[in-house]
């Protein structure tokens, strides 16, 4: 049975992380150093060492999750611990800093720690929420199946348009060729549909429309088809246009689902593009921090 990583082993790691954070806070509150609280008191050094070890261990999760043959705990357990202890890291780092911040390498390391943890929390939220949205959107299809269905629909549309003749093949081809799926980070993450349409003029042989116009969700094409449908006086032709419209409508909803799927998948990945590079920046800042405090001891 599926168990959320947050609830792993009855939230064992939540309790551990809370206990560690609480202990750090209590010791910090009782600690009365001779100087203002900072990373150089005995508690400061202790918290600093604890935080460094914690960062090293949290980073090691990136290695452990790739070691499929490893028997060192389950990946699920590691992830649960990664999430909770990662959150506890913010408490430890804040207390280590003794609430002293400035424009320097030390606060850079702290800020990057917070950024990594915040992006991780965003990732947890996405992982808990998006897979369900994704499977609901896919309706038991894989992306490849959806793409194959798209090719099928394209062919059906073209054939139907060719059967109608006139400006229909051009319109359908333009709608197909100028359909946009993904393509840029913005289009993926915002789920933006950049599809366009270059429509033939209403009267065949007349000048063509000069510019391609936006065709989000194939609406412009469907509107155009609707207008042609209204104009049609021939029963057979009407039936054919009607058939074509339903094909284009099916294509539209498939495209929307594909786009939504790409959007969800992009978000599920996007946070990692912050989480991982920020972690590397954090490690660099951490190394600099540790070297520098002893360089100018």
């Amino acid at each position, binding site marked *: 049975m599926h168990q959320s990583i947050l609830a792993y082993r009855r939230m064992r790691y939540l309790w551990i992380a809370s206990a560690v954070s609480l202990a750090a806070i209590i010791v910090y509150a009782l600690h*009365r*150093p*001779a*100087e*203002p609280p*900072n990373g*150089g008191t005995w508690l400061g050094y202790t918290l600093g060492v604890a935080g460094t070890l914690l960062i090293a261990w949290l980073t090691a999760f990136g290695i452990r999750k790739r070691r499929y043959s490893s028997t060192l705990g389950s990946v699920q357990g590691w992830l649960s611990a990664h999430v909770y202890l990662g959150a506890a890291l913010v408490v430890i780092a804040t207390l280590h800093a003794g609430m*002293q911040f*400035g424009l*320097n*390498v*030390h606060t*850079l390391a702290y800020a990057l720690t917070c950024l990594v943890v915040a992006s991780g929390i965003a990732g947890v939220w996405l992982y808990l929420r998006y897979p369900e949205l994704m499977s609901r959107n896919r309706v038991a299809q894989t992306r490849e199946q959806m*793409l194959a269905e798209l090719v099928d629909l394209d062919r059906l549309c073209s054939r139907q348009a060719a059967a109608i003749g006139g400006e229909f*093949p051009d319109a359908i081809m333009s709608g197909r*060729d*100028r*359909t*946009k*799926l*993904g*393509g*840029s*980070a913005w289009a*993926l993450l915002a789920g933006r549909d950049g*599809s*366009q349409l*270059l429509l033939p003029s209403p009267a065949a*042989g*007349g*000048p*063509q429309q*000069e*510019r*391609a116009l936006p065709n989000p969700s194939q609406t412009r094409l469907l509107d155009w088809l609707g207008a042609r449908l209204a104009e049609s006086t021939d029963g057979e032709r009407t039936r054919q246009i009607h058939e074509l419209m339903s094909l284009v409508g099916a294509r539209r909803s498939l495209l929307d689902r594909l786009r939504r*799927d*790409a959007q969800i*998948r*992009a978000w599920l*990945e*996007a946070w*990692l*593009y912050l989480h*991982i*590079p*920020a*972690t*590397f*920046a954090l*490690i*660099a*800042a951490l*190394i*600099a921090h540790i*070297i*520098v*405090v002893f*360089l*100018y*001891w």
Partner: protein
Amino acid sequence: MRVLIRFVRRGQAGAVEHRERLFDGEAVTLGRSTDQVLHLKDRRVALKHARIVLRGAVPVISSRAPGGIVVNDALCREAALRPGDVIRIGANVLSLFAPPPGVDLAFTFELDPEAAAGEAGLEPHRLDLAAIGWRRRSWSWLLFGVVTFVVLLVPAAGLLDEGTRERIRSGPLPDDGLWLSGPLASAHHTTSERCETCHRKPFERVRNGACLACHAGVSRHFASAAGIGTQLESARCASCHAEHNEPETLLRRDDALCAQCHRDIARIAAAIATTQNASDFHDDHPQFRISLLTPPGTEAERRDGTWPVLRVRVDRNGLAERSRLKFPHRVHLDPAGIESPEGPSVLDCDDCHRPQPDGRRMQPITMEQHCAGCHRLDFDPAFPDATVPHVAASVVLQRLVEYYSRSYLEQYPDPRATAVPARRVEVPGLVPGAHERARMLQAARSRAFAVARDLFERRSCHDCHEVEHTGDKEDPWRVVPARLTAEWMPAARFSHAQHATALSSCDRCHDAERSKDAADLLMPSIGTCRECHGGGERKRQTAGLVPSGCTMCHGFHDPAQGPWTPAAAR
């Protein structure tokens, strides 16, 4: 510009399918982007690859894409077009033919099957972030490198030599200011904020030598002759004086450090008889001891005018200040006022007691500044403006004799004086004879002694001073020297200025309004301070009291103990 585009599709059996489109617009744009007039589904083609415009009547194709265009098998950027020309862009072939009337340009558009085969059909949709070129790994290493370079390597280059350091600091490059773990204490801005002033050697803690370079005259904590606390003598300055903290705290203020020794100091420093244990102001601190000036007792002291200092508990029974002055505070502080030459005058504490500019001790009280306004030293009601100076009794007596002698000799006798010779014949222009002068001087001297007796034994001097009889007929009086204690508690820092708050007035600590006698000791005991001051920082929970650590009143470096040279190498 009207353009006729003929789409050509060749079937497998050699059948050719045509479809025509008439375009009317300013330019025919060609490219991979979906907003182009001719949408070329070919990865080799740029998003906006080329455009055809009318220049005069001649259509011209131009391209700024890296791949360029091939016109009549020649790669070019721009070309004027004539019917018969063939343009190739990737697998797309445009062949120009003579335009029908009313059309500016006409061409067929088809896909070269051979060229298209290499392209493997349609461009795949880019449906995830990796497909659009996002790379976690390269971003990660890039950021790692940038951060290392900016915050570590570039500033560290300044450690190579001084020239590099100054170049980095004066330029826009990140310097070792980025390494600052907290602001420099304001007192240390004299270092021009140069790290190396104190951090002389990398990876080595700041040594005392760096501190002593400026703080040469630092004092000992106690005289080392006592042979105690040698670990103090060799301590690191920075163990008490920590830099780069917020809030700025250059001074270690924890009682625990002091209490380490002072909790049991009476045993540790038994050689210093006066030491008493103390570990917390509120709970473990001896009663205050005051440094009471006592009048000279021995012959030598009397001769040298030295007043021995008596260190004594402030609450000792029968303790009296022996300043040798008569001064009832109560009379002077009478709310109804005190008699003065200008009529009754209401005095306040600060009419006489003013803090020093540093806010700590009080300025000394002097006769001239504080008393003479009322206590005027006139001696003869007939001449209220004539006064004697506030000097030794023999000098005062001398002045009086001189004064009266001159008055008599100048024949300005006191009209009420009985000693004036009654039957003296005053002949204008007559010079008194020797006998007459001797008589007058004798009379003047008697007069002066009578007035002096009045001064020393009944009036002005006697009001404030103790006057002794010397037994010497020529110099019969001596004013007993008086001295006020200037510093009652030299071992403690106390700021009157800081205590001048709405919560405390003078009489909260000094009960002067009820004091009838100068001998009354008006110094507060520790109980008075503890009304507001609690224990050290650790005991700040003592309800409503000001947390008061050792260093609030006491200093570590005692100038009285002489200069200290801690081990510079540490």
